[in-house]
């Protein structure tokens, strides 16, 4: 240990610690300054940025021992001094913080910039923030917030009464994200919590034998316990879909993927850092691993799960019409094959949480997208009643689908339950990448037929999806893709078949779009080839074939309203024409090795579960102090559910947003609002919120004996109702109240009207589809194969934008992930398990975004609203790929289009 005198946030502190410890760990664990986040411990993400002697540094790479006499400033210090107040307001007003995990680092970096440059240009902002990764926002609103910050930004006014829906309300949960006080998965554990660490397979497939665990515990100082499969009280199986639950908490004799858990070590908090997991007593016998779907489907391949012949998890099918008959010589036929790889979610917050046992009640605080699913799974694993377990979701530092599955939950729960002491677990970045789900790698074969006049006649789609070692959401991908594979276009004949195949890769699960981003790359890519073969303008070809109201989708579903796809396409028409002219001019006048290109792609996406029940329940009450209490169980993972539900609640109830307080999400107190997935929260939980609010309004009017159109005005301890000139006042303190102080409560459930699909995939799988189209303008350096994006124009039919700022944030964030999918991301197990070899877009990689919001006013959505979370990323990668093809004249079919891939494609085209 070493004692150093450090000035931290203006106070001189004596810090005694192991001198090699990272400054970030000391700030967080010893000093409680958890506003400094840890995302990688390797200088790759920048989330731990603090000012060291006034200069931004990664606190994860600074040894505490060298700081004697130095000055450290964290977000808490900048907040307390008021230095970043304008910046914080500007971030709020611009919607520059979504999940908030990178926000402290963004603010600290921006503060350092603004100290020496009060009016930075966009390029200067990018240079200053280039070292802080954000996976949610797409960076554009961050840049806007900082370039606007020198001028005190006008605070967004509160929504006028009754007009919260459609207002650019600032996030109701925004402030803690800006001052470092938000509590994420790794932030809230009690100081004395034991620390868990997981022993994982270093092999893609291996048998193992455990050694003398008792001796290991006895010989390791500070080690409290080791747990393995034999310690699971209930079922050593979990999975988000009960019928295919197949993943063990701890492998029993064979590990099926690199990163699979085999044991857990629990140690005293001070001891874990010096524990050497290499010394854990286990012997491995590596087995032949099956890494590709071709190998897995081979008749001689080892079976990864004995009950799944040919390693096939499931198949999906949607068909109508006569596909084979349409693929004849009277039509124009094109075909192609595409492939994509594993994609890592790369949220900046690695999985984290802790559990505390209070007698026979287990409290699990965890970063999760699906608290009720977590509770059911843990009950099964621990052999407890669900009611014995309380899931307390922390703020979620990015989810994008992977935090729907269990990660740390069973480990902290098991250890806390068995040991009776609080237990915490935070995944390291490599562990997060190895152990958790990925986007499915895909191999897709597509054939399209169109009449010589340019009308689509048929699509034949065949997709093989690598679902990895365990099922996770593999069935969902296999079922959703066949419905969406054709895009929002009219097909007289259609056939889409999918197969989800097990390999010894990491489990592939849910990731923004459930397979549709992959299939859209193939479909929209082949559309350009078909349009060219037909001699048609690529946008016009899409317009001619666009799905419209009254026309059947490939599942035979017919919408009479709410299909805004043609409006999306036509809104892009002027941008398309301008961009094409600009590209032609640039290509005529610029250096020959630079080729400009323009790409367009459409999309659609059904909101909510596919042809399955998908209810959300919301409870709203009036408290006896005059506050409206919204029991809001839709986890806000940064997308803005807390704000959106508050806006909907305000207008449906007829009160100001400021009167509403939120409780939850918490499985003990908030009703089940389902999981934050499938772009369902605004639509499904939003509807439940509107229904509950309307029901409460009726009760309150009844209480006051007022007419349905009366204005209600809750105030301190009273409810005032203005009814046609009469003012009635109800003293809330005189009314009987429940445990929460509520004097009136209403609860409502909404479940989308869908129907099951028949054996040909025919039916009404979703009540609401969102539509969109992106236009990508880019420049290819043909000598190096690098792609520079110039601009993305994004048109989306969002039904109704409950909060346009949040909607734009979803779109820009989706675009950034689409850019990664197109140009740089592919997870290779064992090769790039960190955020420097696995690269995601930085602030310099997302170009200008022009947002066009189309409001088609959906008949099912609350106030006409549809989902947008996943929709936004689906057309980006196809638009970019089509733009590259436009620039260099050759289709890249195997993603990502890294510089070597683009260069090779260009050379082939010569």
């Amino acid at each position, binding site marked *: 240990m*070493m004692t150093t005198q450090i000035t931290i946030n203006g106070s001189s502190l004596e810090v005694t610690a192991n001198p090699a410890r990272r400054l970030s760990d000391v700030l967080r664990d010893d000093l409680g300054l958890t506003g400094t986040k840890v995302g990688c411990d390797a200088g790759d993400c920048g989330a731990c940025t603090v000012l060291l002697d006034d200069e931004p540094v990664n606190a994860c790479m600074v040894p505490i*021992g060298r700081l004697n006499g130095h000055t450290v400033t964290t977000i808490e210090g900048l907040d307390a001094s008021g230095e970043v107040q304008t910046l914080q307001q500007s971030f709020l007003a611009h919607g520059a913080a979504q999940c908030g995990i990178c926000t402290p680092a963004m603010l600290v970096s921006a503060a350092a910039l603004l100290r020496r440059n009060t009016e930075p240009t966009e390029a200067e902002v990018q240079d200053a923030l280039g070292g802080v990764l954000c996976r949610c926002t797409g960076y554009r609103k961050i840049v806007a917030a900082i370039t606007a910050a020198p001028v005190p930004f006008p605070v967004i006014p509160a929504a006028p009464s009754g007009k919260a829906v459609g207002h650019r309300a600032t996030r109701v949960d925004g402030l803690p994200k800006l001052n470092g006080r938000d509590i994420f998965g790794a932030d809230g554990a009690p100081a004395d919590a034991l620390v868990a660490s997981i022993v994982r397979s270093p092999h893609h497939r291996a048998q193992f034998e455990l050694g003398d665990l008792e001796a290991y515990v006895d010989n390791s100082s500070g080690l409290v316990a080791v747990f393995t499969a034999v310690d699971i009280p209930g079922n050593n199986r979990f999975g988000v879909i009960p019928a295919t639950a197949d993943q063990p908490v701890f492998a029993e004799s064979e590990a099926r993927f690199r990163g699979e858990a085999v044991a857990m070590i629990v140690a005293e908090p001070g001891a874990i850092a010096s524990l050497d997991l290499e010394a854990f007593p286990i012997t491995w016998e590596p087995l032949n691993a099956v890494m590709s779907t071709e190998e897995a489907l081979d008749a001689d391949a080892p079976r990864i799960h004995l009950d799944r012949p040919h390693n096939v998890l499931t198949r999906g099918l949607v068909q109508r019409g006569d596909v084979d008959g349409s693929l004849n010589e009277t039509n124009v036929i094109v075909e192609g094959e595409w492939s994509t790889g594993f994609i890592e979610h790369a949220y900046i917050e690695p999985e984290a949480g802790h559990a505390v046992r209070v007698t026979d009640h287990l409290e699990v605080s965890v970063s999760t997208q699906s608290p009720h699913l977590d509770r059911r799974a843990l009950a099964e694993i621990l052999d407890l009643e669900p009611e014995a377990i309380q899931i307390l979701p922390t703020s979620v530092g990015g989810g994008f689908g992977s935090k729907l599955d269990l990660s740390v939950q069973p480990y902290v729960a098991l250890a806390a339950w068995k040991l009776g002491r609080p237990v915490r677990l935070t995944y390291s970045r490599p562990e997060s990448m190895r152990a958790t789900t990925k986007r499915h790698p895909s191999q897709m074969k597509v054939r399209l037929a169109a009449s010589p006049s340019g009308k689509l006649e048929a699509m034949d789609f065949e997709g093989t999806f690598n679902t990895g070692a365990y099922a996770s959401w593999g069935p969902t991908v296999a079922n959703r893709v066949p419905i969406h594979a054709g895009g929002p276009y009219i097909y007289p004949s259609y056939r889409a078949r999918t197969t989800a195949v097990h390999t010894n890769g990491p489990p592939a699960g849910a990731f923004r779009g459930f397979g549709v981003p992959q299939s859209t790359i193939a479909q929209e890519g082949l559309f350009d080839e078909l349009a060219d073969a037909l001699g048609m303008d690529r946008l016009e070809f899409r317009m001619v074939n666009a799905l419209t109201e009254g026309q059947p989708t490939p599942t035979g579903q017919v919408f009479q309203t709410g299909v805004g796809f043609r409006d999306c396409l036509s809104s892009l028409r002027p941008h398309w024409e301008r961009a094409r002219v600009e590209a032609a001019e640039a290509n005529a006048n610029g250096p020959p090795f630079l080729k400009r290109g323009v790409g367009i792609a459409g999309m659609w996406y059904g909101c909510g579960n596919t042809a399955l029940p998908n209810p959300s329940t919301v409870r709203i009450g009036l408290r006896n102090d005059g506050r409206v209490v919204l029991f809001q169980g839709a986890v806000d993972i940064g997308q803005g559910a807390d704000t959106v539900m508050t806006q909907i609640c305000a207008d449906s109830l007829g009160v100001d947003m400021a009167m509403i307080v939120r409780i939850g999400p918490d499985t003990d107190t908030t009703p089940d609002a389902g999981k934050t997935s499938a772009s369902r929260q605004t639509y499904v939980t939003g509807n439940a919120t509107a229904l509950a609010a309307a029901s409460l309004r009726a009760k309150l009017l009844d209480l006051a004996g007022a007419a349905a159109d009366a204005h209600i005005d809750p105030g301190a301890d009273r409810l005032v109702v203005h009814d046609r000139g009469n003012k009635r006042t109800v003293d809330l303190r005189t009314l009987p109240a429940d445990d929460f102080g509520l004097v009136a409560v209403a609860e409502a459930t909404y479940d989308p009207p869908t129907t099951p699909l028949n054996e040909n995939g025919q039916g009404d799988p979703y009540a609401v589809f969102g539509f969109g189209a992106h236009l990508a303008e880019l420049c290819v350096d043909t000598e190096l194969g690098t792609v520079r994006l110039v601009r993305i124009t994004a048109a989306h039919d969002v039904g109704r934008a409950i909060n346009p700022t949040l909607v734009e944030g979803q779109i820009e964030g989706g675009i950034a992930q689409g850019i990664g999918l197109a140009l740089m991301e592919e997870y290779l197990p064992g090769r790039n398990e960190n955020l420097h070899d696995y690269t995601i877009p930085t602030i310099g990689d997302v170009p200008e975004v022009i947002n066009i919001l189309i409001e088609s006013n959906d008949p099912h959505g609350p106030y006409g609203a549809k989902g947008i979370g996943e929709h936004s990323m689906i057309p980006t990668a196809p638009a970019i790929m089509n733009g590259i093809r436009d620039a260099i004249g050759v289709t890249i079919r195997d993603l990502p289009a890294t510089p070597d891939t683009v260069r090779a494609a260009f050379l082939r085209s010569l």
Partner: protein
Amino acid sequence: MQVGASGSDYVIPASLAEAAEMLTGGPRTILAGGTDFYPALVEKPPTLPVLDLSDISDLRGITAAADHYRVGAMTSWTDLVSADLPLSWRGLQSAASQVGSVQVQNLGTIGGNLCNASPAADGVPPLLSLDASVELVSVRGSRTMRLDQFLIGYRATALAEDELLVAVLVPRPPEGSVSSFLKLGSRSYLAISIVMVAALFAFENGRVSAARIAVGACSPVARRLPDLETALVGRSIDDDLVAMVAAHHLADLSPIDDVRGSGSYRSDAALTLVRRAVADCVRQS
């Protein structure tokens, strides 16, 4: 543990002499900026005892002597970017400004970059083009070694166990030299080089009087291209110097396939970048 006691696990000497003395007690990990040290420890505790150089103030900064510049080993990338230096340093300054991120540039040091000896070390090609040497110190004395002799292989240097790299020595380049640095990465920031090229040119009476071109991330250690340099020196500035760059000039490179790109792509991209770096220098002439 006692701070500074030579037998302890983590020592922070206040002088070079003290540091050299501490290294006589057995091998230590030398901790400079920490930007390579900590990323290597994401899932494991440090193995060797550490010697922290941060308290030796005369290891940081750039000083000019009559015939050379001396860059202290603990000089950060940010120090380099913000220093007022002649055009011949522009390549190195450009490389420094493209290292990782501002946060990394504030911590990472030139000495650490050289001792870590990554094939993709951003400081190496520009320093090779500057004909840099390194100064090594131990209790046995000090020695100076050309950088291309110091870097002996993939993550390997000629540094002895008891030695410290204390400075980089850069001879004053020919009058009027210009330089260039081009980095090819897969994204705008936080990029590890796929290929990088540094060039330094001097021109006299309308002819190339010096040409020093180095390529990084295409061999275990970044390399100069002596055949190309010979081919270019003496040429008229009015010749098409760019067109003289040919694939065979890069024949000694041995790029590998990795997650950032294939070996054949690297060769191809290196040729393009060399041509562009030559063009950039000609433009500045």
